[in-house]
């Protein structure tokens, strides 16, 4: 993975930069320049790629963040923001000539506002801590990425994180009301608040999922929902993935939007069952976990319909959770699928494409062919309701060339997703991992248009360069216009 070439001039003034940053940050330990200490920041959740940052800073006030950005802007130094460092796409991978801006100290919930049904938090608060803060009063925060115990809410905004419940409850972008952010030139701005919809251009909308390239998020306001009165999960096993996929389509076609609808293939079922004994059937090719929430009468009503549809689609096993404990057990296997697969292979890489659901049989078939071609095993977990596929490619990084083989296999899977009408990433982000595949999905001009947005926020390209876009264009170059010498066209089309 090629990163932008480190700037020798910047590296040469490292000591002066450390001094400059120490003058900004009040905490004497808030500027880290020791190689061993910097090791803690060398990678994020995509641990195959590692890079020590030039310097790491851990500010504790928004003013300090603003001053750091202003200083780095003036000194021509790149900045990589980092929340909890759980990105699976390398979004927080440091740069050799960059300052890594850690937001770990921003870990407080600032306000719980039941009158407006929202919560205001600093960006370093974990996703789960948001829910924990309001759980006792019967509320929760809906997006629940698998890493929710560790990932930060600021990172969730930067990546537009999803989770297993987003078919019904939406992604981060649908649950976010406002942010405070600092632009690269040190301006502190507020977008949104406790009200709905953007005033003017929807900057909050484009900040969500912008992967740390547009601004540094310093405060987040999200809406909270009342926890449903009942939740029930159902396991349904099928002799083939096609039948399971068919069942998912028919459930939605019947007008049912479950709270969650997950699918696992044989490989993932076995790995998960071995790891945590969730009671999954082992004689099926595909397993659906369907969660329903709401009043008991509604759950019962839908379950009757789902049972009939599943039977019609050839289900061989169906079990409904009878207790909350059993429901949690059903989920335990799914939630542990990644570590479970990790246990049976020295390394694995988790992919993240989204496809139109009806393309699932084709994609699975082709993926099996690719698996044979590359000689690498693949296990599949799938947010079936919204078509978000997570193939886990198993490999051993100690075998020379196997990481590269795995990367090529992964790239082929993502290209396949795009080929069938899907996208490169559903929730993990582009980062560095899928950066070089962007051309598969976007034309050169579309990528340029996206970078013009980057120019609007960060004209010097200092924030998180080398991520998302395969080719870095200068903003001046992107601004140029080619004007054709136009006559008023179509004299024959009707004019009023």
């Amino acid at each position, binding site marked *: 993975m090629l990163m932008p070439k480190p700037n020798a001039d910047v590296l040469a003034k490292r000591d002066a930069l450390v001094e400059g940053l120490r003058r900004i940050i009040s905490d004497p330990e808030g500027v880290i320049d020791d190689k061993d200490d910097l090791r803690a920041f060398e990678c994020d959740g995509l641990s195959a790629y590692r890079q020590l940052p030039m310097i790491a800073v851990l500010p504790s006030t928004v003013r300090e963040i603003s001053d750091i950005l202003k200083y780095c802007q003036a000194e021509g130094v790149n900045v990589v923001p980092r929340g909890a460092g759980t990105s699976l796409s390398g979004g927080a991978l440091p740069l050799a000539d960059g300052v890594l801006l850690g937001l770990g100290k921003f870990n407080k919930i600032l306000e719980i506002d039941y009158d407006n049904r929202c919560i205001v938090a600093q960006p370093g608060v974990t996703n789960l801590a948001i829910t924990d803060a309001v759980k006792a009063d019967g509320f929760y925060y809906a997006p629940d990425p698998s890493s929710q115990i560790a990932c930060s809410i600021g990172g969730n905004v930067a990546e537009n994180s999803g989770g297993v419940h987003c078919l019904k409850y*939406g992604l981060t972008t649908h649950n976010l009301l406002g942010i405070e952010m600092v*632009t690269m030139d040190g301006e502190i701005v507020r977008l949104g608040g406790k009200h709905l919809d953007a005033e003017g251009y929807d900057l909050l909308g484009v900040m969500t999922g912008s992967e740390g390239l547009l601004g540094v998020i310093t405060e987040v306001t999200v809406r909270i929902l009342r926890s449903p009165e009942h939740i029930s999960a159902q396991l349904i096993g099928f002799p083939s993935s096609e039948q399971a996929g068919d069942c998912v389509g028919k459930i*939605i076609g019947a007008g049912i939007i479950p709270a969650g609808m997950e699918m696992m293939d044989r490989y993932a079922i076995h790995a998960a069952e071995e790891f945590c004994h969730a009671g999954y059937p082992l004689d099926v090719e595909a397993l659906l976990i369907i969660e329903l929430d709401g009043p008991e009468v*509604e759950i019962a009503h839908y379950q009757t319909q789902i049972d009939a549809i599943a039977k019609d689609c050839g289900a061989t096993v169906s079990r409904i959770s009878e207790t909350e404990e059993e429901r949690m057990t059903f989920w335990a296997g799914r939630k542990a699928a990644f570590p479970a697969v990790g246990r049976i292979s020295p390394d694995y890489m988790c992919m993240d494409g*989204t496809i139109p*659901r009806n393309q699932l049989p084709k994609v699975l078939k082709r993926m099996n062919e690719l698996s044979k071609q590359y000689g690498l095993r693949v296990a599949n977990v799938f*947010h079936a309701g919204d078509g978000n596929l997570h193939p886990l490619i198993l490999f051993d990084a100690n075998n020379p060339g196997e990481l590269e083989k795995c990367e090529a296999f992964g790239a082929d899977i993502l290209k396949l997703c795009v080929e069938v009408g899907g*996208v490169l990433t559903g929730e993990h982000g582009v980062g560095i991992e899928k950066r070089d595949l962007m051309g598969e999905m*976007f034309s050169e001009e579309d990528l340029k248009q996206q970078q013009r*947005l980057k120019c609007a926020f960060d004209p010097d390209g200092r924030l998180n360069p080398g991520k998302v876009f395969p080719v870095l264009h200068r903003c001046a170059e992107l601004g140029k216009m080619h004007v054709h010498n136009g006559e008023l066209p179509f004299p024959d089309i009707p004019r009023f």
Partner: protein
Amino acid sequence: MQISKITEEQQIADMLDWALAGKHGLTIQGAGSKAGIGRPVTTEQGLDLSGLTGVEMYEPAELVMKAKAGTRVSEIQSLLRQSEQRLAFDPPDYGPLLGGAAEAGTLGGVFSCNLSGAARIKAGSARDHLLGVQGFTGRAQAFQTGSRVMKNVTGYDLCKLVAGSYGTLAIATSLTFKVLPRPEKTRTVLLYDVPLEKAQPLMNRGLSSVHDIAAAAWLPADIAATCDIEYIRGPGKSVLALKIEGPGPSAEFRCTAIREMFEGEGAQEELHGHNSESFWRFVSNASAFEGSERPLWKLSLPPANAVTVIAAIRDKAVEADYFLDWGGGLVWVQMPDGLADGGEGLVRGALDGAGHATLIRGSEALRGKIAPFQPQPTAIQKINARIKDGFDPENILNPGRMYAGEEMKASV
């Protein structure tokens, strides 16, 4: 103004080339049903996209549809109805409110203006349902963003900018959007004679309950009196309304539970099926204010501020009419005639920095004089101006519709 009726995408590309070469502004519109929102656009040439029609893809089981920008929203809705589906954000129809025909609005219009009805509070906004856009930027470049799948974080989400930019950044020619099942049953619980001071807290209690309320509005007695549903108009009282949706047994269960919960808070009634649907159309379309030309403001604000904001407005303009939607998070205010600024100072002053106010209806003179859209702080306006510059550097698309051109250019 000369208006060219567009029937295919290539005509747009050619018009844009012409406009760029001579630096001509272009008025971009669909049916023109919302042309009265925003600052007046004065260009010699206009593009009418209402002839660019047709559903390009509809897969009910995938919950997705793609259609050309000029397709009427009403046509999309009847097509969806055949598969028991709908646009869950309740696209409002402001046609009659702005003195035009009903059901004329186009898909491009409703997404470009990011307009959502009463269901927005639970189902999300128009922009939340927009998955992909194809069209042209003001650089005369074909562009596309987003996709057809529900979950996509590949690159910047430029759909968010197309939604709500009133055709000032790009011309959308095709839109791909999420559709959802129509609920089997819709019911509305009504509470009569709840005073304003208690309305928002009561709606909040409902919305904070487990009963999954899909919409919540409160109408003062004089607004309720303009509704042609007998249950709303008849009693001559204020009406607080809570919408419930779902399969039969669940709608019934929830209705009963909500009525029990609000026992003692006022006389109760229920609207079913057709009545319930027409009531929420009345709320979403702000039909109470049809047939007038008085300045009409739409305020999006923290719901708990609704009562104080209304009090502050009525303190200075006691004739102002109003009602609450979105559980108090949306306040419609119709100002009396005769205020030089159409009530701008009053309305924005009352918000006191929390939320925003948009002038939905006002005379052309008024719209040219005041800021129909909430003015932005300098730091944000600087970013807005650069965004505009990135999409439409010569300012040829709906010039000045949202913000004055000079004001945008000056801050680049």
